[in-house]
């Protein structure tokens, strides 16, 4: 049966058919839908783990117990999970353990563009790369066998364009009928990595790599596609699709396994063609390996190492490398001077009010020039974190000074305070991010008597990745009710004495809570609670601007709410976007009381 599946859906279906029993993940674009899709199958245990490290440990435990396990994450998630991942390499597994990591060339939704292939080399484990959804599905049938045969975790590298592209998949399998029952076999030399045992396992890892290299030589997805002799292209992943489109006549060596590499096959291919190039996304991983093998090859001399590739970029590279004749048709001029449309906080976002308060209290509008740089030190330093709220960096809210990685804002705030900055330091972190990796920062703050304020933005979901549940919501990945971890009890339990919980849509309360917390010389935590507006089921009472009262002061516009728009010198509220009664923040802010329910003001006066 033919289906149109995204790479992530294909991974999930393929893994399900391969008899996976346990799947774990923490949401992260572009990997999120793997776990979401697999959680829809009944006879499988699937969970959102607290973070990628726990997800990896869970997968490892399941694999030790003899069943097949799938762990998925985005590329920076593997940084968080790298400790257990490296351990998995040395202990090996029992049931198959497969780790899908989705890279993000172009940094569409990530703080960096790290190339996960280096992790395969670091951990000495095999790395496979599908080039479309069909291969994502097909490879899942093989990777668990590789894992079990070679006693190793297997890395599968996806990318934004594999995970988030839909292509046709011939679904030709069904779930493996006999799945193993979990049972753990006591074996301390394999599973207890005391140094003495680790030293015993170490030679086995090198032997494993030699065997895997031999396997790669005849691996069916390392494939030579014969074309003309003048050009041979080595490629993998989605880059192969671009290269195939741009160089339709060329010969190809398409690599489904990019670590370890099939040395003989690469030499054989190089001997068959006049010139060898590598088309690969991000680092010259294949190219450097081939050069080290003594194969004359080029690639990154004309293929960019920064950003996502596309057929246009590969074609341009082909011109520069003299592989293609210059184009006949002229490219269109890029439209000039159009206003951009960067992502924004949604209408009715529970984060808008608190950032408005931080902006005004910190007098930040005065602080920053248009490029977000300033010589001055602010009245408040705001260390930020990863989530929708990172968008509050931009005008008009301009209320974030740092964002590094998940959970970093709290530690950064402590560092600034201990370094002795003159301003009060406030760390802002979302609920899911806090549970992911903010808790240990609070423990440090209590223990080392920090004087910062930590603001936890609790919108009751992992919003940016598409509304996944987390330990704070008490709903499982399968949508079942479980036990919720209560944030206020958690921080009080750690030892924070000044803990306030405040309504995200009550501007007076927000201002009072933030004021009293930053005035407190001791450590304080403010939990700002309000539901994500995208999850509002019923919207009622959209607001409108009463034109008779509005004096065009633009205070409401400083919230950055996309429903509040100004076109042709008139401020108005888009009723189709406004969250209405659930929000009312603009109404509370308006100095002229010109904003109210549309029903009270009437459409005539409002526009």
């Amino acid at each position: 049966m033919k289906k149109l599946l995204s790479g992530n859906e294909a991974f999930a279906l393929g893994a399900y058919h391969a008899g996976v029993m346990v799947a774990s993940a923490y949401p992260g674009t572009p990997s999120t839908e793997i776990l979401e899709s697999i959680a829809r199958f009944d006879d499988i245990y699937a969970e959102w783990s607290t973070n990628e490290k726990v997800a990896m440990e869970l997968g490892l435990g399941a694999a030790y117990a003899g069943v097949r396990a799938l762990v998925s994450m985005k590329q920076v998630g593997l940084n968080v999970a790298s400790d257990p991942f490296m351990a998995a390499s040395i202990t090996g597994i029992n049931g198959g353990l497969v780790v899908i990591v989705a890279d993000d060339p172009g940094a569409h939704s990530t703080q960096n563009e790290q190339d996960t292939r280096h992790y395969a080399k670091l951990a000495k484990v095999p790395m496979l790369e599908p080039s479309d959804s069909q291969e994502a599905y097909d490879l899942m049938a093989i990777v668990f066998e590789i894992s079990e045969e070679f006693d190793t975790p297997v890395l599968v590298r996806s990318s934004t364009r594999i995970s988030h592209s839909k292509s046709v998949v011939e679904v030709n399998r069904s779930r493996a009928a006999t799945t193993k029952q979990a049972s753990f076999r006591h074996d301390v030399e394999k599973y207890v990595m005391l140094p003495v045992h680790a030293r015993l396992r170490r030679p086995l890892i090198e032997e494993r790599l030699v065997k895997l290299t031999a396997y790669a030589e005849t691996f069916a997805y390392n494939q030579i596609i014969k074309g003309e002799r003048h050009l041979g292209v080595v490629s993998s992943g989605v880059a192969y699709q671009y290269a195939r489109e741009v160089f339709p006549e060329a010969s190809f060596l398409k690599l489904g396994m990019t670590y370890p590499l099939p040395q003989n096959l690469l030499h054989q291919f190089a001997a068959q063609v006049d010139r060898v190039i590598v088309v690969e996304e991000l680092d010259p991983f294949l190219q450097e390996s081939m050069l080290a093998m003594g194969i004359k090859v080029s690639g990154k001399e004309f293929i960019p190492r920064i950003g996502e590739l596309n057929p246009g970029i590969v074609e341009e590279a082909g011109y520069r490398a003299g592989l293609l004749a210059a184009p006949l048709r002229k490219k269109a001029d890029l439209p000039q001077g159009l206003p951009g449309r960067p992502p924004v906080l949604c209408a009715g976002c529970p984060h808008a009010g608190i950032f408005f308060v931080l902006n005004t209290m910190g007098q930040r509008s005065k602080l920053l020039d248009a490029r977000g740089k300033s010589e001055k030190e602010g009245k408040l330093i705001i260390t930020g974190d990863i989530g929708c709220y990172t968008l509050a960096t931009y005008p008009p809210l301009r209320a974030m000074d740092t964002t590094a990685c998940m959970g970093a804002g709290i530690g950064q705030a402590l560092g600034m305070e201990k370094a002795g900055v003159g301003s009060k330091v406030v760390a802002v972190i979302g609920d899911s991010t806090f549970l992911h990796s903010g808790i240990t920062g609070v423990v440090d703050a209590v223990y080392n008597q920090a004087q910062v304020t930590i603001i936890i933005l609790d919108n009751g979901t992992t919003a940016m990745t598409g509304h996944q549940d987390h330990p704070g919501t008490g709903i499982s990945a399968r949508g079942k009710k479980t036990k919720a971890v209560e944030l206020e009890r958690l921080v009080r339990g750690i030892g924070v004495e000044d803990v306030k919980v405040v309504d995200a849509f009550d501007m007076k309360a927000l201002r009072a809570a933030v004021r009293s917390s930053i005035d407190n010389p001791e450590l304080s935590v403010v939990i700002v609670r309000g539901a994500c507006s995208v999850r509002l089921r019923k919207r009622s009472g959209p607001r409108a601007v009463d034109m008779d009262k509005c004096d065009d002061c633009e205070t409401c516009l400083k919230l950055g709410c996309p429903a509040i728009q100004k076109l042709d010198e008139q401020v108005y509220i888009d009723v189709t976007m406004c969250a209405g009664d659930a929000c009312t923040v603009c109404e509370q802010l308006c100095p002229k009381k010109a904003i109210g329910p549309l029903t009270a003001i009437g459409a005539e006066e409002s526009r």
Partner: protein
Amino acid sequence: MKKRDLLMVGVGGQGIVLASDILGEVALAAGYDVKKTDTLGMAQRGGSVLSHVRIADKVWSPLIKEGDVDVLVAFEKLEAARWSYYLHAGGVAIVNNQSTPPLSVSLGTHRYPGDKEIEGTLRQRADRIYFVDGTDKAKELGDIRTLNMIMLGCVSFLLPIDADIWKDCISQRLSRKILKMNMAAFDKGREEMSSANLR
């Protein structure tokens, strides 16, 4: 049918991803190879959204090369202008008559382009431009969210694929409760195209 590369553009929240998903499923059901991919950036709502849909006997890259787009389907006017350079010379544009000012326009740091500028930009590449009142028609149908099915109806007018296949695929993706209204929206889109303000 020779290859068709379609680019659907608009603002996050307009239902572009669902519309392009259905378009892909229609192409598959009609026997073509198809690939589709979305560029969403970070936000749930409000940002610029872009869906590439490629239909042919065999498709390699999921991303369409700049200058190769046959049909640009714009749910919003500024986005139509922004992505017009993806069209090949002599391409077709379907443009929903709606202006959603981005924040920078509301804050007064940037200017929303006038209708003439938008049309002029499109005209550099497009031979045919269909302006449709999709947002107004969606409101008339009783739900702004039917805009994506109206736009899909417009697209169907330009592709040689039987209307029954379209309706089949739509009914597989939408819940029963909202199906009737969305089918009406799809028909409305087809109707709009036959009477569209073609320039």
